[in-house]
């Protein structure tokens, strides 16, 4: 069996994902809360109905904050060799993607608001068929990786 890709993503990714999960959960709670209130007060639905959205919010929050970030981090791995980018990710469906460097068109680093706070950036690798993203690396590692990929990809430029 091919060995797993060597590098893990930055552990601070966990915090970012947990914050993202919290925000999503709060948004969901607000939306469902308002609809439940409307259902109760305007349409006079029975009093037990709000239990359903409450359970949904609770489940969603547990998954998005407590369970998934940890697992996602555990399985995310990557490696960049001379010839290709090797990505592994997924929780239930474990995916392993090989991107030949000869097909890479361009690479950029991206930073969201929360990621910037934690000094993280993601690396987006574009091929003619789409974009693959390595989600959360420290800014230094991300910059270095971006330059490395683009340098290696350039050696293949004449191929197409």
């Amino acid at each position: 069996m091919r060995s797993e890709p060597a590098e893990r993503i930055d552990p601070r990714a966990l915090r970012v994902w947990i914050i993202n999960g919290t925000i999503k959960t709060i948004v969901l709670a607000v939306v469902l809360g308002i609809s439940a209130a409307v259902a109760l007060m305007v349409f006079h639905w029975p009093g037990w109905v709000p239990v359903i959205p409450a359970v949904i919010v609770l489940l969603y929050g547990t998954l998005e904050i407590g369970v998934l970030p940890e697992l996602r981090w555990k399985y995310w791995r990557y490696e960049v060799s001379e010839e290709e980018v090797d990505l592994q990710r997924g929780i239930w469906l474990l995916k392993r993607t090989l991107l030949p460097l000869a097909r890479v068109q361009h690479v950029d680093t991206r930073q969201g608001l929360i990621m910037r706070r934690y000094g993280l950036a993601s690396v987006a690798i574009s091929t003619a068929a789409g974009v693959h993203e390595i989600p959360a690396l420290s800014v230094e590692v991300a910059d270095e990786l971006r330059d490395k990929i683009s340098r290696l990809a350039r050696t293949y430029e004449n191929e197409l």
Partner: protein
Amino acid sequence: MSSNKHRLHPLGILLTAIKVIKDLALPLLAFMASQVLRQALSSWTITLAVALVLAILVMVALSWYRFTYSTEEGVLLVEHGVLVRNKIVIPRERIQSVDFNQGLLQRLFGLVSVQVETAGGKKPEVVLTAVTRREALELRQMLMPSAVAVEHDPQAEPGLHKNLSVGYLLLFGVTSGSGLGVVLAVSSGLWATLDDIGLETKVIEYYQWFVEHGSTVALVAFLLVFIWLLAVLGMVLKYGGFRLTRTGDRIQMVYGLLHRRQVSLPVRRIQALRLSEGLLRQPWGLVTLQVESAGYGPKSAEKALLWPLIRQKDLPRFLQEFLPEFKSEEKRNVPNGTVGGMSPIYGLIGEVPLRQLPPGTRIRYVMRALLPSAPIAALLIVWLYHIGFAYPLLPLSLPLVFMVMGLWNHRDAGWGLRGNMLSIRYRVFSRTKVIVPRRCVQSLTISHTPFQHRAGLATFNLDLASEASFGLLHISASDGIELAGWLESQHQTHQASIRKHF
């Protein structure tokens, strides 16, 4: 410079106006009809309509006046726009193809519409809607001196070409799914109407009704056949006179009896070759060939019909002639001459031996097809019991059909490697084989669920620049590793060539 500027043929005004009015016709007619019905068709509505048509004509004439094109020093320069004036400059080197299209009206007046496509950007970059044939040919000569393939003029043609015979054209129409699809759609519509009239109670009643209304049934059958014939006629009109040409490193397809279309592309832009056998075609050994092509831009991908219909046994020779690039590089070690009565060509082209899926996977395919349909069937059965239908177990056929489909999908699934070529065969309805050169694989993903992992299975998927994605469910995990190795192995040779370079 300005003396070299050309306008489109004046009839272009008419053509564009007709197109604009045609696009507006339906809402306009609906509006008029509603006015007539409400008996409110006063003189001012008519004036308004006439004014609208006049305004369109004036606008179109103005934009015709402003639209000029010229070729100067190997550059195509187009200026257009009434309020905002635009200038498009395309250097000759960036032009990928110059294709001619002819609608019915354009054919009547001997005009063509010229489409200029570049590598990248939106597609097509420039359309010259009405140009005389002579001018169009000159334009192409100027812009694409390397690829002057001339349609309609077989004598002047240096390349290889092949015309679709009338017999195959008819066969193509008759066996096409679209005719059958139309009939199915219409007949299911009829069925629903019968339901609405209230005839759904008992099958016996249906039967009696059929007996009593024999003539009606005949009429309906006749109508269905008629619609089907129309669909066939549609296919014949669309693809009639199909002509494939190969000139140097370009291929060109020209087709259409009324509206003559032309598609041309450089062979190196072909990302994959698709051989599909429709349900009605497979039993007769008939194959349809399509190519996936890609531009540089993200939205410029397309699938083009390479050849409508060919017999399986003629395929190797056809590919040898028109797309020898798609034979694998690793030639089989066959001594010269024929071996075992087989032409040596057979061993070389397209015929990558396929590996079937591992033996334990059949049940997975069947269950996968079966599981979603089972609850639906169960619900239907309960409902039919509820309304007291005579044969409430009828929906049991649904999972059966899905099961057979699952078995089929499993039986026909396969893949194979030879040299630089990967073949994947799968069935959705028609059986399709895709041949992909290694250099066109943009990325390869191999994935597995815990269930697959335990059984030593994996799923693979590869993405092409044509935005297509091909793959198979449940190959063995070791085959997945082999595939990854195949994708990587090109680099050894590449690295070697780089080292030689420096």
